[in-house]
């Protein structure tokens, strides 16, 4: 692994004391700058989460609708758009430079991208918090925000698009300059797939946002809501698949890092790369699941794009689930932890890489399971715009993506800053708190959604149906637990950067983060247990819920 260990770093570079990889210092500054912005966004979105979560709980913290919708818009934007995209830009720069020994190509352009995104974010947050843009992150016309809100949005999306272009230019340059031998690492390959999807996001985003901007300043006198909704979801939906693909790439990186590279030999990369390629094929046809109950679109389009397209979009995620769980099982068995599920019980659960990986996969799986009836033409009638929808994306984006990103940062931050993680115990605890918090939050939202409670609605006391109170209480508990874990994450990272022990000793830098695994002679790295697990959860449980929602539809009054 430590291919360059002991070699002198050329000027402007340093050699990572743990991995032996070359780090181009000006590129590293960009990775850190984008990561810092993601943390700032997480802090803003997290502050908003306190008000949103507790207002949707039985406490009903904020009672003024104007205030509530400001917090809700701020929460959606800062979490779903800003935190995730900043982190992803940092991630693309990381997998596109350090992992392949290359410098970022177009450093100035990368800083321009940074500036555009920052400017866009500042404009949008100022307008949202001054109450001039309470339109949610979806900004559906004909309701309009202050025109500058859309300008900010466009700048942010353009900046992110520019960053993706820099990433691809970097990959191209690294390849032509032969910075690495053989093929791209799996994590970089996943990043490149995420980058391809990001390009479709930017194209759709610019079309829809320029369109609504022209309407907001009066250049366009009328607005076609169907047109906007289709193209907006080309931004909103495809962006979530950038998250999914980035998250899966992070999962592979986590398994590799946490096992001290041993697991890498037990992942079938042909299978994994094939699964990655399926995402961009189905991602644009999948947009349609957002318009399943919109008037004006044909049933044929709704079923082809929304339902069939989206069901097949879940295939690559199902494939990765088995690749990662199976890879984990194989490495555990190979190192002597045998038994059909014995390997699972004997996983290094105290290791934040392993726990982060497995718990993030469980939550993402739950999110995927509840998504299936919701993305189907007829059962979607039960779930559309209820709290079932945020249950789905809190499990996928927060439980899946955010938890995976958090776990990865416990590895990457010490390596980039050459400081020991401030507290390994807090990191361990944080992963579990995040899991429990989002598990409860998502379950209570799904429960409320099943009972018909609307999303994006401040339910004042007189608007709450009696059967909604119990899950609302649970929702508040889940939100508080997750917020505590978010604070622990931010504080731990901040203290690492500010007060972590400076060291270049690999044992200190990754001590407790990397398991000492030794492959035993003659051990059989089977994947039987994993096959049974994925079959039960993604086969039986998933289809049971799917058919249950059809059965429930039958009990409704006749409406067609």
């Amino acid at each position, binding site marked *: 692994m430590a291919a360059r260990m002991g070699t002198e770093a050329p000027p402007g570079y340093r050699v990572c004391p743990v991995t032996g990889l070359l780090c181009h210092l000006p590129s590293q500054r960009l990775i850190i700058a984008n990561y810092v912005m993601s943390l700032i966004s997480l802090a803003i979105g997290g502050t908003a989460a306190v008000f949103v979560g507790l207002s949707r709980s039985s406490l009903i913290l904020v009672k003024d609708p104007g205030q509530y919708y400001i917090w809700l818009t701020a929460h959606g934007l800062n979490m779903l758009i800003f935190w995730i995209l900043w982190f992803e830009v940092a991630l693309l720069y990381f997998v596109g430079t350090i992992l392949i020994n290359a410098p970022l190509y177009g450093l100035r352009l990368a800083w321009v991208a940074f500036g555009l995104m920052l400017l866009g974010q500042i404009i949008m947050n100022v307008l949202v918090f001054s109450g001039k843009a309470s339109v949610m992150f979806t900004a559906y016309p004909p309701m309009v925000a202050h025109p500058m809100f859309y300008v900010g949005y466009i700048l942010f999306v353009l900046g992110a698009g520019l960053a993706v272009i820099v990433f691809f230019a970097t990959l191209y340059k690294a390849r032509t300059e032969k910075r690495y031998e053989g093929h791209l690492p799996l994590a970089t390959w996943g990043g490149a797939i995420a980058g391809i999807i990001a390009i479709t996001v930017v194209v759709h985003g610019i079309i829809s946002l320029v369109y609504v901007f022209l309407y907001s300043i009066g250049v366009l006198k009328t607005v076609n809501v169907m047109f906007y909704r289709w193209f907006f979801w080309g931004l909103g939906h495809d962006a979530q698949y950038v998250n999914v693909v980035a998250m899966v790439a992070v999962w592979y990186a986590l398994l590799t890092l946490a096992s001290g590279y041993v697991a890498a030999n037990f992942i079938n990369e042909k299978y994994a790369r094939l699964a990655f390629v399926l995402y961009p094929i189905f991602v644009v046809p999948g947009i349609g699941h957002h318009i399943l109950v919109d008037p004006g679109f044909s049933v044929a389009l709704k079923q082809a794009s929304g339902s069939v397209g989206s069901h097949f979009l879940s295939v690559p995620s199902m494939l990765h689930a088995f690749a990662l769980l199976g890879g984990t099982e194989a490495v555990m068995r190979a190192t002597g932890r045998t038994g059909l599920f014995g390997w699972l019980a004997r996983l290094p659960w105290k290791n934040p890489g392993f726990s982060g990986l497995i718990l993030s996969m469980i939550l993402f799986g739950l999110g995927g399971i509840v998504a*299936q009836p919701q993305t189907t033409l007829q059962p979607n009638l039960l779930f559309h715009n209820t709290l079932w929808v945020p249950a789905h994306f809190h499990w996928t984006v927060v439980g899946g993506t955010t938890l995976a990103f958090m776990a990865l940062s416990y590895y990457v931050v010490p390596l980039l800053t050459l400081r020991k993680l401030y507290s390994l115990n807090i990191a361990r605890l944080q992963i579990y708190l995040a899991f429990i918090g989002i598990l409860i939050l998502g379950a209570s939202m799904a429960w409320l959604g099943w009972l018909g409670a609307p999303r994006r609605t401040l339910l004042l006391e007189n608007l709450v149906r009696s059967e909604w109170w119990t899950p609302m209480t649970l929702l508040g508990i889940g939100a508080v637990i997750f917020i505590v874990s978010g604070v622990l994450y931010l504080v731990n990272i901040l203290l690492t950067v500010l007060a972590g022990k400076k060291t270049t000793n690999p044992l200190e830098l990754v001590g407790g983060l990397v398991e000492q695994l030794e492959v035993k002679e003659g051990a059989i790295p089977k994947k039987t247990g994993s096959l049974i697990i994925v079959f039960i959860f993604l086969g039986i449980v998933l289809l049971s819920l799917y058919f249950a929602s059809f059965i429930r*539809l039958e009990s409704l009054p*006749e409406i067609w």
Partner: protein
Amino acid sequence: MAIFPRKLEEWYKPLASVDKTWIAASVVIALVMATTTLAWSFADPSHQVPTETFEVAPAEFREMASSFADKYRGSTIPEGTEIYLAAVQWAWIPKELRLKAGVTYKVVISSGDVLHGFSLIGDDGTVYNLMVMPGMAYVMYIKFDKPGVYEIRCNEFCGLGHQGMVGRIIVEG
């Protein structure tokens, strides 16, 4: 190595039989769902997304719903009447509909201004949701079997008074 560059011969390995099993299984799972939704369109025509739609100007539709509301305020809507239901910021027009159980009604639903959501929530556990779009009307057919009370709530954010958009359908025996 997932985080290091690799040569083709290092990572290109044949798929194991468990890998192939799961690839086949996940494609089958997706196919089962896709087939079910397609078949359902024919299997049960009375629990579907409405397919009849037409274009209508929001202001015009609001007028249609208002005059309908004036005509039937407080009275049970007779069989064969075409019902107009408009979502506006921030109310339903009409606010209340009195229907008869066992009768199929034709309901035309659209928006008088911005995007809204139509959410029917009943004490019997009914939940049914549609988008309500300005400029485009849905024509839906509804038949309630039993008497009961149903709430109509807006579930697409439509401005600061959004949460208060609550109407009612009262089904009489």
